[in-house]
């Protein structure tokens, strides 16, 4: 059972997550605001990964329910940044094609497309194009609040973009 955790650590050569030192106390799980909806607790995800069962971890709902609020990270007695750990797993899952059917990756992809094209994001436009891709009916549900926001001047659909777009090609 090779330590596949290394794959996560070396992913892009940047993310550094030391999940090996987990003492399996469950503080992260019980601190998570979305734990009720997860199929595995965050602690179990750490256990899966360090036992080499990475594939199982990548298929969980849990990793996509992490909103990276870092409450687990500041409480962890082993000082593991579990929020970052989940981020690395998400990236790994996407790269290896584990989660293409899920909503969250679609959102991210739409987001990245926007940023790469304009350098900035217009949130209302992002929401509209995301909803059109996934669940157009939802736009109807959002209508009342959208109208309210528009009325309050909080919603603008005009596009902002970076002048020098060449500078954001890397």
């Amino acid at each position, binding site marked *: 059972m090779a330590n596949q955790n290394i794959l996560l650590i070396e992913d892009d050569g*940047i993310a550094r997550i030391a999940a090996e030192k987990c003492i399996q106390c469950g503080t992260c799980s019980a601190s998570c605001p979305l734990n009720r909806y997860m199929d595995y607790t965050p602690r179990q995800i750490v256990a899966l990964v360090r036992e080499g069962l990475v594939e199982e971890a990548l298929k969980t709902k849990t990793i996509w329910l992490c909103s990276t609020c870092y409450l687990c990270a500041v*409480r962890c007695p082993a000082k593991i940044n579990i929020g970052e750990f989940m981020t690395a797993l998400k990236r790994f899952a996407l790269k290896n094609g584990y989660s293409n059917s899920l909503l969250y990756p679609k*959102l991210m992809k739409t987001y990245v497309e926007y940023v790469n094209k304009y350098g900035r994001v217009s949130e209302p436009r992002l929401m509209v194009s995301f909803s059109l891709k996934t669940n157009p009916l939802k736009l109807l549900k959002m209508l009342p609040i959208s109208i309210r926001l528009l009325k309050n001047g909080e919603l603008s659909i005009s596009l902002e973009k970076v002048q020098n777009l060449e500078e954001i090609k890397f």
Partner: protein
Amino acid sequence: MDTAERRLNGKHLSFYPGCSCSKNGTARRYGSSSIAVLKALGIEVSEINDWNCCGSNLYRIIDERGSYFLGARNLSKALEMGLPEILILCPACFLSLNRTLTEISRNTNLKNEIAKKYRVLGGPAVSRLRIRHIIDFLVNDVGEEDVKNRVVKRLEGLKVAAYYGCQITRPYGYFDDPEFPTSLERLISWIGGQPIESNLKTKCCGGMLMLTNEEEVLNVIESILRSYVKSGAECIVTACPLCHLNLEIGRARLSGRVGLDENFPIIYFTQLIGLSFNIPVEELGLGKDDVGRITEKVRLTATVKGV
């Protein structure tokens, strides 16, 4: 106070609005009210030239390296402007730029790669970069004396609950406790308000998951709103565009269930400070509803300072 004035006199920061707080963003009112408040305090801010997306978590999941390049471009622009102290409103941007800076300073390979594209980041000037959240700046640099001196209308007795959300103090919130911060409560009391506590004040609002896992996130928001209703708050102030949006969605969708009326004021804390500074409501981006609700509670008749 003399010392504070001397320290802040001519203080000039660069300003990173980010997509949400910029002119066409969903949190444009957070942006405009912050600038108005800073101006009233004699602080000059200059928007970073041609800034771009901070390289937020959403981006970073797909392309980590790219996210640092995005962040780095903003940092390099600030340095080129000669304003290495960067003021930020949006906690997600605050987190991203802080992370970029942290990674640049500890990962030499990354730094070298980035410096090839953004020259100024290869030099010693990097060490002068400071990424400041506006709460940190107002509480720790401007300080109690200056804020109080600028108050025209004390919001006497207004019960204000602060909702920080998560990423202001985590994991880069070195200016306050990561779970139980008190900076906003201090600001509220300086302008005469009565801070109301909630132990959910730094619990996550669900963030972007509102778009993908609406039901789950609405449940989270419901518990947050319930705790604020229970605490007797008359107004909730926020400091994050996404928290704000989610709370507003929650208010619209759940008001009946949690016993909150649908006009209950949920505003940015800078808007509230602006009110006490007597800044025109248009500049603060406050809707008539909000002002009406607050003034009704506060009896703003008590003009403490001035003529």
